[in-house]
């Protein structure tokens, strides 16, 4: 059971990460990603009893996020690769980076569901062990898939 204060801390720590995962699912559409991130945190509060191990909190959050995103796609089918939004970029209005980011969204959108989840975790810098735990696969399997996916993402981004 999570206390309200603990939930506030989780929210502050994980909101940017969850929001970026949602952006990945919503092809960079910020208002939709914002609504989806909100939905993820509502689910996290509702389903807090399903946390078996506090140490596995980040895996639990990512799993709930992915499953919520997967179920929300049917409500947002209209967002295809042709409609990828202009995504604001920090630290400054870098046009080239903004274009690269749009390209990255296009690549993510074309990935299969399990590859997409893995790509989003990789981009968040989650380590192999945690990726394996979140996706429910073995570490060896995760390592192989990560290697292939990194190459794929690099190759596709090179074609900019």
């Amino acid at each position: 059971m999570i206390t309200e204060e603990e939930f506030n801390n989780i929210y502050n720590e994980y909101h940017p990460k969850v929001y970026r995962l949602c952006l990945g699912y919503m092809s960079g559409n910020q208002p939709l990603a914002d609504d989806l991130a909100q939905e993820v945190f509502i689910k996290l509060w509702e389903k807090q009893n399903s946390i078996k191990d506090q140490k596995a909190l980040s895996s639990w959050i990512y799993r709930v996020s992915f499953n919520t995103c997967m179920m929300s796609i049917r409500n947002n089918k209209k967002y295809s690769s042709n409609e990828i939004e202009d995504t604001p970029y920090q630290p400054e209005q870098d046009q080239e980076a903004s274009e690269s980011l749009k390209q990255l969204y296009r690549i993510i959108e074309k990935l299969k569901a399990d590859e997409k989840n893995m790509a989003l975790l990789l981009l968040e810098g989650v380590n192999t062990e945690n990726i394996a735990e979140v996706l429910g696969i073995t570490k060896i399997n995760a390592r192989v898939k990560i290697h292939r996916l990194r190459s794929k993402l690099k190759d596709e981004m090179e074609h900019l």
Partner: protein
Amino acid sequence: MNNFNNIQSLWSNQEPQKQNKNVDYIKAEAKKRMQSSGRRLGWGIIILSITAAILGIIICYLPSLKWPFGPGLLAMFLSVTLRSSLEIISMIWKQRLNIALPTQQYKCQILRYYRARKTLTTTVTFSTLALYFAGFSIMIPAFYGYMQTLYFIGVLVFILVSVPVFSIFLIKKSKEELKELNEIIALLD
């Protein structure tokens, strides 16, 4: 862009949107949803308890009830009890779906639930409805014997109006749910 670290940095440097809702709103919304789902389950249990109690009484007094009232009432209340029980099982099943499973397992789990829900919306709903009306229909000739002609005509007109209206409402609701279920199943399959 040939370095994966550059891609990662490109990803993490996205400018986050200003949050529209704060954490208190999220907690309040979650609590509201939990209360609403608890209330729905509570009402379901109340309806089930009442119909089950009536069904119990009918079964107890079945030998003393004259034909066709015994089988007629039994069929009517059995159908309502059956449908209410399955609805409650479905609600509890939905609440127990584990959203924290790995995506593939969650997908299998939720697909099983939605397929069962589809059967409930189509086959089960219409079978129980047919049983309910069968039970009522076999009692109509007996009503004629017990009621004055004017009352009987009143009851008959009421049935002839209410049955089609209720059926259209139910078919419309079922179609809406079925459309939604088919969409979800097609997405997950």
